[in-house]
């Protein structure tokens, strides 16, 4: 048993962390829930002495918002496309990296570089790659300085210039750009985790597979992937969580417009929706949206863990 004096000491040692957690984690969570359930809560009006009634009006408002549906749709589309694509690509790259001896360290560094680069900066580079510089685009008197490196490649291969992100671009083109960018941005972390997993697999399993004349494809599907399944589950779950919080990547390419010039907000996401609500001082609505997002992430993660219980071995 620890006597009382000792217990006090323990509390004192813990106090800095506890105080910080209370102020910056526990209180905000509690406050978010509180604001979400106060009718039409606004921080500005609250400061002015106004009181708010308890109710679920904020949630109703959020769901009824026309933009909410489009934000949710964008978020879900980006999630369900980028997570599988980036995981699959990361798996293939990690396996390839693991199977080569020379240059492995250098290539590993190159693949990891995007992770340490600012995502807004990367977004601007991507935007430049897809951007058409010029004016009167799509008219008879159009002046195109450059159609961007991606279009240059398409033209070189005999294709037609595509309006990716500029005035008049289509939703599909915008989404393709977003998916390419998010996948590329998500790769390094996933490669790192999967490569680490691969390197910890006992080589003897591969020797045993060789002895049993296992075809390479079967070695991959029946030995590598199952033995890597804990890492794959981790990468997929964190990928979905990150995907539902997607926001900066869109700012990175489209700026705060969250869409091409002629249709601002078209690519807005759930987190963007929350920011917009905060900007109009509707903390109640923002909190309600945040709780809805939290609920969605919770459910998806629970599904993920349930699936991985069956799929992840040992």
């Amino acid at each position, binding site marked *: 048993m620890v006597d009382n004096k000792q217990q006090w000491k323990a509390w004192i040692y813990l106090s800095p962390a506890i105080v910080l957690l209370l102020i910056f984690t526990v209180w905000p969570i509690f406050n978010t829930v509180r604001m979400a359930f106060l009718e039409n809560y606004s921080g500005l009006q609250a400061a002015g002495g106004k009181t708010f009634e308890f109710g679920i009006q904020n949630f109703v408002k959020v769901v009824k918002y026309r933009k909410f549906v489009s934000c949710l749709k964008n978020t879900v589309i980006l999630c369900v496309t980028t997570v599988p694509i980036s995981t699959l690509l990361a798996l293939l790259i990690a396996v390839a990296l693991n199977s080569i001896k020379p240059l492995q360290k250098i290539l590993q560094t190159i693949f990891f570089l995007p992770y340490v680069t600012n995502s807004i900066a990367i977004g601007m580079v991507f935007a430049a790659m897809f951007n058409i510089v010029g004016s009167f685009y799509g008219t008879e008197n159009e002046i195109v300085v450059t159609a961007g490196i991606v279009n240059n490649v398409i033209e070189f291969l005999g294709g037609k210039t595509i309006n990716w992100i500029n005035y008049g671009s289509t939703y599909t083109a915008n989404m393709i750009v977003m998916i390419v960018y998010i996948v590329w941005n998500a790769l390094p972390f996933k490669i790192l985790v999967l490569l680490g997993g691969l390197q910890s697999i*006992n080589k*003897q*399993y591969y020797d*045993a597979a*060789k*002895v049993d004349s296992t075809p390479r494809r079967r070695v991959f599907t029946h*030995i590598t992937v199952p033995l890597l399944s804990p890492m794959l589950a981790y990468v997929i779950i964190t990928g979905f969580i990150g995907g539902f919080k997607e926001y900066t990547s869109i700012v990175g390419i489209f700026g705060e417009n969250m869409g091409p010039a002629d249709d601002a907000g078209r690519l807005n996401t759930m987190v963007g929706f929350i920011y917009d609500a905060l900007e109009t001082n509707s903390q109640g609505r923002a909190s309600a949206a945040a709780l809805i997002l939290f609920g969605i992430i919770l459910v998806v993660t629970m599904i993920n863990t349930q699936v991985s219980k069956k799929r992840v071995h*040992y």
Partner: protein
Amino acid sequence: MKVVLQNLTKIFPSRNKKVKGEVVAVNDFTFEIPDGKLIGLLGPSGCGKSTTLYMISGLQKPTSGKIFFGDDDVTELSTENRGIGLVFQNYALYPHMTVKQNIMFPLQNLQGADKLSKAEMLERAETAAKLVQIDDLMDRKPSELSGGQQQRVAIARALVKMPRVLLLDEPLSNLDARLRLQTREEIRRIQKETGITTVFVTHDQEEAMSISDMIVVMKLGVVQQIGKPQDVYDDPTNLFVAKFLGTPPINVFNGRVKDGTVYIGEDAVVTGTDVSDREVIIGIRPEGFELDENGPLQCTLSNVEVMGRDVSIVSKNDASVNPVIRSIINSDHKIDTTVETVRYSVKLHKFFLFDKETEERIYFEVK
């Protein structure tokens, strides 16, 4: 399928770049393993026996030399195409598969004409499992099995595809004493039943001697002696082989030969040999002693261990290399445990002379 090893050599380069020098793991190994026999590669750790096994499997490439399966040169053939079965020392069972899936895995890899139906695979997996007595564990994962059970799954997995050659790397090292005895008999039985040429690696001489048709004794990458277990035991080519085989081990003495008489200390153990005068090392098997009131070899009695069928007499002699001498005497003899000195005569066929420098056997005849 006979397996021929021709001047097989494996050299590992030095790991440390600053220190030059390489390790010769296997040095110029030539041997023809007869078809359908069980061969034991025997030696202390680091003698190159596992490396030899892995070269036969193809997992390691020989630095020089050739390997033939039958008349086919397989030296350049990859492991996948050699058609061997290999039991790893650490089992290497796939942790995410059940026992059944593990055993069936090699069968599912078969392609073309060898392809089996699901029912055939299941049947063969069950036969293999029965052979090693794990047919009641088919739905468990390897992590739910004991070491011995895992080892048997590994043997079943190696056998199920009817390999051309079966290779076992220390197959019994993780089993308890009783199971080891039982399993080694089983390996012998399975090998005889299937007639598959089998090579197994062990550092346990008793294990190798008890089930092998032939044993290969190795030391530091060099083959010391090849032969039937009894022949190698009865007729070792050098001191290393003599010391390595036999439990309890051979008794070793420093001695000398003068005028054809072999002396241990002042005792003239054997007379009338044709060996020229020199210093020698003398090896006498424990069963090579006979109690003899007038025997030439005098030893100080330490104690007597009765083991039922036999009696083991522990005694001392100044010329002995080991602290004690152990002799095994038939228990029909009455042994007086109160005497201070025991006197032995020696059986000539259990008595070996070795050169003091080279430790090679000195063959002699008694006139």
